[in-house]
Every structure is written in structure tokens, then in C-alpha cells.
């Protein structure tokens, strides 16, 4: 990301976020590397099981959260203003904030000079995303989106699925995911673009997306089967 973004950020947040998306995308974060980067944050922030507010707020469920969003944490005035002004934590805003915190929230009490290397930021975000992962965010979309987070073989994406086979296999999905769409605690999977569906399922299969049921179900689906399901659900009859 170039320095140009920084001063654009100084202006109105919301307008800028949209244009930032592309700057972040394409960078693949590495969770293990991100865990190492997180050591720099650990003195003040907790994340994961039983994480609590310390000097800084805990970072579970960070993605999609309004800045200064916790009632039980005492934020700087500057941060509260940013939150009231509409700042939300998405992949792009977090990336910009981490690059130069004071440029985004000038009066933040967070005494951290920022992560200059784009790869470090991408790694850290990949790590933090583990604790924000919500099945409702699939397909890989705002707020956790960091672009295409897979090196999925193009041949896999190019597979033409057999919708009839997909119809049969879909029985395994519709015990939980409603065939008519609708989300009552379990996200809708109908009418997704086929590529998004394939990418999401392979992310579960490779355990890059966290969810035990989905990792188990996707874990034994072959490439053809995932393609078949994608083809079926993309055009499911209503």
C-alpha cells in the first residue's frame, strides 16, 4: 500500500474505505507468521479463548465491529469520535490503521508506531481473523475479506459441476442450511456465485476457515463434488 492512502484517510472515512479494498486484496496473510507479529500487540491486547480487556480492548470478533464499540472499555476521546463518525473495522480499515495508527485516529492512546510492511499486516490480519471468523461472512466478503485468500488451483475453479450430482449431495447440506434460503442461525447457501462457493468450501477443506462441522463435511468432498454442489446451489429452483 502506498503512502498516498494515508493522507486520503485523513478526510472522510467512509468514502475512502471503498477505494481501499483493492489495495489490500491479493495479499495472502499467513496465520502462523501473524501469530508472531501479534507478539508486538500482546502487551496490551488479548485475543482467543477467555480474552478480556486489558490496557487495550480484547480483539475477538474484531472484524465488522464499530470502532470504540465496547461499552465496558474506556476509549480515548479521539477513538470515540472516530466510532461515532462511522469507522468500522474491516480488512481494509484495519490494514490502514495498522500501517499508521495515528494517521487514522490521531489522538489514540495506542502507543504503537505501526507495521510498515504490508506482508506483516496481512499476516496479522489473517491471524486476528481466526477469532472473528463467522460462517455468516461467507462467501469471503466484507468484513473479513482480504481478497481471495486462497491459492486455489485455477483448474479447480474451472471445473464444471454436474448439477444432478449436486442435487443429490445437497441433501447433506439441507439438514442445516435451508434449501429455500433464509438464515436462522445457519447462513444461507443458495444462489451464490459458483466461484465463491468453491473457494469457501476449499477453505474449509484445507482448514483455513474455522468451523468444525464445515471442516468435517468439506473435508471429504472431492473437487468434483464441490463443483457439483456449487453448480446446484447457484441455480437452485425456488
Amino acid at each position, binding site marked *: 500500500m502506498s503512502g498516498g492512502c494515508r493522507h486520503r484517510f485523513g478526510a472522510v472515512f467512509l468514502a475512502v474505505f471503498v477505494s481501499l479494498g483493492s489495495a489490500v486484496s491479493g495479499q495472502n496473510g499467513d496465520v502462523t507468521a501473524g501469530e508472531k507479529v501479534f507478539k508486538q500487540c500482546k502487551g496490551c491486547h488479548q485475543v482467543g479463548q477467555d*480474552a478480556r480487556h486489558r490496557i487495550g480492548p480484547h480483539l475477538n470478533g474484531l472484524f465488522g465491529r464499530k470502532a470504540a464499540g465496547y461499552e465496558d472499555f474506556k476509549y480515548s476521546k479521539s477513538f470515540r469520535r472516530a466510532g461515532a463518525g462511522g469507522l468500522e473495522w474491516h480488512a481494509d480499515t484495519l490494514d490502514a490503521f495498522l500501517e499508521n495508527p495515528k494517521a487514522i485516529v490521531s489522538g489514540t492512546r495506542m502507543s504503537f508506531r505501526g507495521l510498515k510492511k504490508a506482508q506483516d499486516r496481512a499476516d496479522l490480519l489473517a491471524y486476528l481473523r481466526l477469532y472473528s471468523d463467522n460462517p455468516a461472512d461467507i462467501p469471503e466478503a466484507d468484513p473479513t475479506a482480504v481478497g481471495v485468500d486462497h491459492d486455489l488451483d485455477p483448474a479447480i475453479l474451472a471445473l464444471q459441476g454436474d448439477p444432478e450430482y449436486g442435487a443429490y449431495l445437497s441433501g447433506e447440506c439441507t439438514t442445516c442450511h435451508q434449501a429455500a434460503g433464509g438464515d436462522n442461525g445457519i447462513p444461507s447457501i443458495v444462489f451464490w456465485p459458483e466461484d465463491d462457493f468453491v473457494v469457501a468450501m476449499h477453505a474449509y477443506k484445507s482448514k483455513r476457515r474455522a468451523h468444525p462441522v464445515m471442516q*468435517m463435511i468439506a473435508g471429504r468432498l472431492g473437487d468434483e463434488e464441490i463443483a457439483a454442489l456449487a453448480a446446484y446451489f447457484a441455480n437452485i429452483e425456488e
Partner: protein
Amino acid sequence: MTLDRRTFLGAAAAAASLSAPMVHAMGKPRVVVVGGGAGGATAARYIAKDSKGAIDVTLIEPTRTYYTCFFSNLYLGGFKEIDDIGHTYGGLATAGVNVVHDWAIGVDRDAKTVSLAGGATLPYDKLILSPGIDFVDGAVEGWDVSAQNKMPHAYKAGSQSELLKAQLAAMPEGGVFAMVAPPNPYRCPPGPYERVSMVAHFLKQNNPTAKIIVADPKPKFSKMALFQEGWANHYEGMVDWIGDDFGGGNVSVDPDAMTVTIDGEVTKVDVCNVIPAMKAGRIAELAGVTDGNWAPVNAADMSTKTDADVYVLGDASQQGDMPKSGFSANSQAKVCANAVRGALTGSKVFPAKFSNTCWSLIAPNDGVKVGATYEATPEKIAKVDGFISQTGESADVRKATYVESEGWYTGITNDMMG
């Protein structure tokens, strides 16, 4: 020789009757499904829906409203109303299933017919039985079905669930709730322990000095570490679980005196929930497809080992590694529906794939789950891979698990009933 009118008619009639089976074979194939629960409703709906009218599907189910056993414990805990867990059959009728509210009382496998209590006899090409469970006679000394009003099982949901809930609410202050837990194998392995949790939750709110005793013939049970952790966290000192090591299997009850005797020790109780040993719903036995308490089936398509045209789904089947759950029955039904449709219409039959996940609620927003995937082998349905919630999980994870179970409930009931 001239052909007189009479001979001619006779010959024509003979020809007609000879060709009758042909005409029938060229007509619509007929599937009869007995039992409109998790297995039967799903199978009926999928065959009707996917064959697009090419197969005649009749479902026999005596009740007009199916109360799901799943979430019936949440009803006891006060998280659901009874109407939330009741489902009618209009969706199936709309999907093209001929829904007949009657009991199947016999199966003639040679004639390929099912007889109904109302007097009708229905022919079938393929018969699918998903009758759920019945109780083994004499399983708990002192208890039989005639005592179910004094000591309810509440293991078939509906009036029994309402009765148990009313008894729970009427318990005197500091009273005793007893449960006699069933031996393996039985419907819903975590079910009795989720029930203990929900009863404890209700009592904690309404009758905090009351106690729960569980007499269990098993030394351990499903999700045991998770439940015991939860009981210690939420209901400290309230639940006394007596496993087999401490004589929990040596139990008798006296429904008139309202006493439970565990390993020789007599206790006067206020409510007694007796969950006896189980067997396949009786119609499976009447059809002659059981071996012992359950009906052995082939894993590839859920057809019985006894008769390739009779299939058994869900709790009544003996299939291998899958637990007896609504999720399992629903999963098996879809494999069976695909195979039955293929056999009758020549549609493509895909390889069997099964899965299961059982969620349980321990306390408000404290949900846990266990699940696995399965495949068909020549011997049985065999487990492939699985997972279970961990002890010590964060409150966020447990809440998310509970929210997910709500989503699953909507999903599976829509999948069954349309």
C-alpha cells in the same frame, strides 16, 4: 367351431387379467412409507419431490401433528413453547405425498401389501419403515406403559412432554426429580443428559433447593465431560448421577408409592422420568425384518437384510456406527430416497454418504455439539471423521453453538416437512 359370444368374452377377460400385471408395471410405481418422523417424512418428501410425480408416494402416520423429540428438552427448560416443536403434514401433501393418518398394523411381504388399522390394504413396490422406537417390555422393574402417566418417559414427544413439564412445575419446594436412564443403544445418546440440564435450569429458577437423581445403567455417557462440567458450573450440588459402578443399573420403581429403589436403597420421589430400554417400533417386528430388538440394514441403501424391497430408516434400523438421532434419520432417508427412486425409475443412483451432528443445550447460551461423517461399507455404516466441543470453551463459542442449533432446527424441520 364357431366362437360363441360367451367364449369370446371369457377369452378377452382372461387376456385382460393376464395383462393386468403388465399394465400395473407400466403404471406408476408405488412407495409406501410408514411413520412420518425424521426418517419417514424426509424420505416421502424427497421421493415425491425428486421423482416429479413419476412415483406414487403414500405416507402412513397416525398423528396429525408431529412433535419433534429434538428441542423437547428445551421445552422442558422453558426455552420453547409446545407449539414451537409441533409440525403438521400440509407441506408434504403439497409436495405430492398422499398423507394417510392411520396406523400400519401389518405387512404381507409376499403379497407386498400394508394393512391399516382403518381397514385399508395398500399395495407397494417399495416399502419404507421409519417407525421410531418402542420400549422393551419389563426393562425397568415395576414400570410398564400403563404407568406412563404416573412416571412419564417423555421419550416420544407431545402429550408425554407436556405431562412431564406439568409434574416438574408442580414439584414441592426442595423436592426430588428422579430419572431412570436407558441402556445402550437408544434414541439420542445425549438426550437424557440434556434433559437433566434443562430440568436443572428450570429448578434453579423456580425451585432452587430441589434435587435431581439419575440412576444410569451405563458407566459413561455421550458428551459426559461436557455435561459434568456444565452441571458443576451452573447447577452445583443439584445433580446426583449414579452410574453403573455405584449400582445405577440395579433399579426398580413403584409408580403407586412414587418410590425408586437404587441398589437396594428406597427413595421417595416427586417426579420420576423412566426412560426404559428401547427397540424398533413394533411394525418393524410385525413385518418380520427385525433380528432381536432392531432391523439390520444394508448401508448402501438402507434396505433390510431380510427383504430387498423393504427399507428401515432411523432409530429402528441397525446400521452400524451412526447414533440414533433425527439428524441421522434425515441423512439416511436421503440416501434411501435416492436408491429407491433409482430402482423404480432408473434415475441415477449416487454413492451413499451420511453425516450427523447433535447439539445439546446445558444452560442459557451454553450449547455444545458432537458430530461425525460416515460411509457405507459392505458390513455397516462406518464412521469416517468426527469432532466434539471442548471443555473450557469461551462463552462466545458456546453461545454461537446454541445459535447454530436454532438454525439447524429450522433447517431440518423444513427439510423433513417442506
